[in-house]
């Protein structure tokens, strides 16, 4: 066998002064980067296996461990940097597509960080959320045309998703993530009065009690979907694309299709679950309309039907088409959106920032006079409450978080989800690893995260003199851009700081 040119990515630094040989690290590393050596009677490291997930670092009771980048210089070359060279080695050895997990990690500009929020000073009072109610409740769903149907409010409205905080947990399928991850998300969403999205993998029967707060996904593989599931769910989302891999389907390897996954997805045990790149019954906008109305028919028009698309270059026109095709919610997934597995080149090079997609779509729908009729949700790269506030000011009704939720559950962003050996028990089906997410703790952590954001959002809103989130929606005057060029400001529809 020819020698591998792969170099370790990380160095396990073990402080011998502190190591007590308790082997907790050995017990926790599913990658076997820590090994108990019987003869030496000590723990030794296998650096090549380390993925820098920090499980051992966090668990080490004496803080004896630290993971460093494996520093191996190549001759300086601005063009062929170390990463490019190492990826080339990898592909020369494997002959395969480079796979990666989680969202785009390239240093593209993060527009959220170029937006600044306004606050009240003197001319109007800021509102103190500790003294005055500040409302974050949001309704997602189709709204009738106000001019054509002025008495709509006297009737039953079309179905709406009521969110106590304009945050939802993004689609992450059972299969790509563990059942305990689903349990945590479902329980937290129910406690928070929001929705979570079960992704394209159906809903495990243990979670049926949470189904009123569950959005189920109809994606190109149609996994886990049937009429009773649609009726049971709180909402339905047709997934056309995903920000991390626009234009690409999904592939859940057979090894992850264990008994529960197989039963929930309604596919044979151990078989690969392949979601085609397109829906093979949607080759045009009119086909999408048929699917939307098929789903509405199937649920007696009692369920919200959303459509999720990846943010791509002509997203404004696409979104307009989706709105007119009858979608109740349009989800725009920006190119920083996470994934369990994506081809690296796709993830890093395809799509649009969610900020631009949102600004363009919101503006376009307003120009067409239909913005009020459809809800706009964005996903892909929301990291904190300020990002949410900015997204809503740009025009979103609500946002999805995926990666942030997983980080709350313990994800350390090692980006190795596709290996199925998630040391934090999230992106895995291995029973001993799945146990690492205790849904009770998971729920608490997710609830804490959203509640802390809720409070921060209320503070930011109050600072702007606003006591209901709908008064921020599309309120772009509350934003100013810093470090943006004129074209970027124009697309975002905001003024420059100081204007």
């Amino acid at each position, binding site marked *: 066998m020819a020698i591998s040119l792969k170099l370790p990515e990380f160095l396990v630094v073990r402080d011998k002064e502190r190591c007590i040989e308790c082997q907790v690290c050995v017990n926790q590393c599913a990658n076997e980067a820590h090994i108990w050596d019987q003869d030496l009677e000590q723990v030794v490291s296998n650096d090549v296996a380390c993925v820098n997930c920090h499980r051992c670092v966090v668990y080490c009771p004496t803080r004896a461990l630290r993971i460093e980048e494996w520093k191996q210089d190549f001759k300086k070359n601005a063009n062929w940097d170390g990463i490019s060279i190492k990826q080339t080695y990898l592909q020369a050895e494997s002959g395969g597509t480079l796979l990666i997990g989680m969202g785009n990690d390239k240093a593209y500009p993060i527009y959220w960080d170029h937006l600044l929020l306004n606050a*009240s000073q*003197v*001319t*109007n*009072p800021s*509102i103190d959320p500790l003294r*005055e*109610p500040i*409302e974050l*409740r949001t*309704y997602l769903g189709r*709204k*009738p045309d*106000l*001019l054509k149907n*002025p008495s*709509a*409010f*006297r*009737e039953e*409205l079309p179905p*709406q998703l009521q969110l106590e905080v304009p945050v939802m947990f993004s689609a992450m399928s059972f299969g790509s993530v563990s059942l305990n991850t689903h349990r945590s998300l479902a329980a937290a969403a129910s406690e928070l009065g929001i929705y979570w999205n079960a992704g394209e993998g159906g809903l495990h029967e243990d979670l049926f009690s949470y189904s009123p707060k569950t959005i189920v996904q109809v994606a190109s593989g149609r996994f886990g979907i049937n009429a009773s599931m649609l009726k049971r769910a709180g909402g339905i989302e047709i997934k056309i694309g995903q920000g991390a891999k626009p234009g690409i389907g999904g592939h859940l390897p057979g090894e992850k299709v264990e008994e529960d996954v197989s039963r929930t997805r309604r596919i044979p045990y151990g078989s690969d679950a392949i979601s085609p790149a397109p829906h093979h019954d949607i080759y045009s906008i009119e086909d999408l309309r048929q699917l939307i109305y098929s789903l509405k028919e199937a649920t007696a028009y009692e369920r919200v039907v959303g459509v999720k698309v990846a943010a791509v270059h002509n997203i404004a026109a696409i979104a307009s088409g989706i709105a007119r095709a009858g979608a109740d919610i349009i989800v725009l997934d920006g190119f920083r959106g996470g994934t369990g597995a994506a081809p690296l080149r796709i993830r890093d090079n395809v799509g649009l920032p969610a900020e631009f997609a949102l600004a363009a779509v919101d503006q376009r729908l*307003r120009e067409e*006079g239909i*913005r*009020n009729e459809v809800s706009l949700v964005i996903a892909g790269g929301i990291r904190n409450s300020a990002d949410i506030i900015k997204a809503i000011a740009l025009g979103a009704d609500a946002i999805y978080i995926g990666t942030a939720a997983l980080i709350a559950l313990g994800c350390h962003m090692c980006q190795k989800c596709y290996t199925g050996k998630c040391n934090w028990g999230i992106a895995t089906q291995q029973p001993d690893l799945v146990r690492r997410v205790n849904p009770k703790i998971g729920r608490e952590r997710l609830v804490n995260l959203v509640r802390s954001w809720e409070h921060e959002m209320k503070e930011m809103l109050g600072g*702007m*003199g*606003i*006591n*209901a989130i*709908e*008064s*921020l*929606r*599309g*309120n*772009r*005057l*509350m934003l100013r851009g810093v470090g943006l060029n004129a074209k970027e400001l124009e697309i975002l529809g905001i003024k420059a700081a100081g204007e």
Partner: protein
Amino acid sequence: MLREGKIRIPSGCAVSGIINRKGQVFSGIDIVDSIANMRERSNGLGGGFAAYGIYPEYRDCYAMHIFYDDIKAKEDTDYYINRNFEVNLSERIPVRKVKVIENQPIIWRYFLSPIPRRIEDVGGDEDEFMAQFVMQINAMIEGAFVASSGKNMGAFKGVGYPEDIGEFYRLDEYKAYLWTAHGRFPTNTPGWWGGAHPFTLLDWSVVHNGEISSYDTNRRFVEMYDYKCTLQTDTEVIIYLFDLLLRKIGLSLEEAVSVVAAPFWEDLDDLGPLKSRQLRNLRILYASALLNGPFSIILASGNGLMALNDRIKLRPLVAAEKDECLYVASEEAAIRAVAKDLDRVWAPRGGEAVVGLLEGKSDLLSASSSGRKIAGKCSGS
């Protein structure tokens, strides 16, 4: 410095309004005295009045008050007016020389009857025709600004303290059954006459104290329904919102109030299932029409007035009654200055509208500006 329309300017203010609900007219002296009593609330950079019932002889004509920066603007505007209207009277508004009032524009008024064919060209909705015409002039013609355009009413406004503006416009010589007034405290303005309150559209006028934090949400909402927010002022967007809700969509005044000053979600449940469902639905459908942030406004039409605070009452508003007269003002002192023995004085709660309608009217939306009808000839001389 940029003026309204180029930049958004926050301002503080005083408002006052008086209506005789029997429709008996009275001179502008009371309203001037009332607003003058709140001089501290303005800074001399804007004052104005709206008066209803002042042009009985031209009651069926559109009374258009226009500010012109120069004669070129007037000529351009006249060209459009003549293409679309029969002009019953065109004259300079009579003013008095007041020492502190300066830089006044050319202030003109017209009494107009639209040419029916022009209305039919735009779909036959006369109100919509008028509204679009006014917004066109404001948006398109540099140096022209329509201060008011309703029937039997007019807006009198300018840069200065309101009592000086009243003196300037000789309001003591007008008689109206409904007066509103405004004293302005802009924090940053070159003092542009068009930027003063009231702001009007059709018969509507609004005087407003406050700052609408939801401004851009509201603006972008009304702009979906063919309004052009050329001034970038809260007052402008407020009047467009009410026009949209009351005239275009046809909500009742009560419904419109529960849209712009929506009840809190948690308070909805106490209202009984039907009521709470309708209010919830209204709030869901008209989320972008919620006026958020501190305000007290007086919305007036030929039918009467409505005074309203934001839903958590961040600005002052007091109401009082004496016989058939209803008074609303930022401060009780402003009412007491003109009416000594009041039957009742109260401070309306946040989001609670004070409505004063002419006898026999059930809504603010005036007959002249409701329905799609073609105007007849003006009956005035």
